[in-house]
């Protein structure tokens, strides 16, 4: 279909927006303050819907869809910049037992508490996503290999230390297992591959007894500072 040269102006009042507005209201989203059905108001509604569709309803974290977008962006960014970026995937140990023993409402409380704990342990620039039932993923841009284990362990410890009240009389403790892999530097690759590598580490953490973090052993960076120093030693002298 060819786009017409002059788009027909839309009469916003003809649009059926009741379902959209209902959704926003139910999600507790602020409706735009502009004149209803004005362009600014419509933009506000669309923005609010976009925001809603990129977040997980239970935890307010980034949902799977926008996580996948963020991960692809990060792969491309790192391929160009050569920066070090870490992907962590984690999941709550024996979560099924929580649901089975305490009910799904308790399970939801645990998921929320874990989401909050992760949020408190990472930097604002990191992307924390809920990618499945009790599965989370975190993209940590500009994270140096030497800090990878420290970050993963900090998250693990924070979760293990917290008590989640599921009834006025009962609190639960849960643990998580984490897997992590650094983005391939300089190499344009796919986000799928990066996710697979992190997942493999998560399986390893589970297999090694849970409540632990396993990171893929870091291959040495392509060009070290020492190599660069040697590379430019003579050429710099020459140009002086």
């Amino acid at each position, binding site marked *: 279909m060819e786009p017409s040269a002059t788009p027909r102006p839309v009469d916003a009042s003809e649009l059926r927006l009741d379902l959209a507005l209902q959704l926003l209201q139910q999600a507790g989203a602020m409706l735009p303050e502009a004149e209803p059905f004005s362009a600014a108001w419509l933009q506000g509604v669309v923005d609010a819907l976009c925001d809603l569709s990129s977040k997980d309803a239970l935890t307010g974290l980034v949902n799977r869809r926008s996580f996948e977008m963020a991960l692809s962006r990060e792969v491309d960014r790192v391929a160009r910049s050569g920066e070090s970026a870490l992907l962590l995937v984690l999941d709550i140990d024996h979560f099924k037992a929580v649901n089975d023993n305490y009910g799904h409402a308790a399970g939801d409380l645990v998921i929320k508490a874990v989401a909050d704990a992760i949020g408190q342990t990472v930097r604002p620039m990191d992307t924390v996503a809920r990618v499945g039932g009790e599965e989370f993923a975190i993209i940590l841009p500009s994270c140096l290999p030497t800090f990878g284990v420290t970050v993963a362990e900090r998250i693990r410890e924070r979760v293990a230390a917290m008590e989640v009240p599921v009834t006025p009389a009962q609190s639960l403790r849960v643990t998580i297992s984490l897997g992590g892999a650094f983005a391939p530097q300089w*190499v*344009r*690759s796919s986000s799928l591959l990066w996710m697979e590598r992190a997942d493999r580490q998560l399986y390893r953490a589970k297999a090694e007894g849970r409540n632990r973090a396993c990171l893929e052993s870091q291959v040495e960076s392509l060009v070290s500072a020492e190599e660069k120093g*040697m*590379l430019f*030693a003579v050429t710099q002298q020459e140009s002086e």
Partner: protein
Amino acid sequence: MSTNMAPAAATSKSGRALARTLAVTSGKGGVGKTFVTANLAAALAARGQKVLVLDADLGLANLDVVLNLHPKLTLHDVFTEKATLEQAILPAPGGFHVLLAGSGMVEYSRLTPEVRDKLLYIIDLVKPRFDWVLLDTGAGISDVVLFAVSLATDVLVVATPEPTSLTDAYATIKVLATQQGRREVGLVVNQANRPGEGKLICGQLQQVLQRFVGPTPGQTFRLELLGEVKNDQAVRQAVLKRQLLLEHYPGSDAAQAIKALASKLLA
């Protein structure tokens, strides 16, 4: 450049010698990789060689821009079976042939088994028909670039004296040595500021490679300087006008350097 990667005298079933395949790569973009490839192709053609330049920069091909070609049929059409290989191989100025990637190839900019198979298939088809197949790869060290390079018997790395270009060239050579087992790589220093700069840079790279990539027992790594192309006004003019340096400024220092590069490859 001799190579121990593949015998130079490999022959097809029909008995005709298979083309020598040379991948031209750089790590960093914008260092004149496509410029060197196109003019080297013209220089080889002038020496009576049948040359094909294959645009292996699938994501961001610009061989057509450098040569001022407006192809109707491209590699994309061959991939999608809208054209035969014969239809897509076009004569270029300078007496060589090109197989252009064209637009619509973005979907092939990541290495999938499909892209791998298609590239392999194309290379196998063109090898018996030419003396030389030059693979103009994309910038960076993406898996597509590495795969394209792995298809070639010889590798030529283009670098400029700029630090970012040198670092990326070094990273590329290191990956080729460690991941593809290359023992010999050719180097062209483009935009050299003064005579001897190419030799200096090559020596420097070789030293760092020797130290950090290290010779595996019984083998040494050799980086051979095959060309030093001066930072030449004629090059800027040719690039701006989208002309071949060798056709329009044949007497320039840069053109002489490219011809010398061709001679070294044919030696």
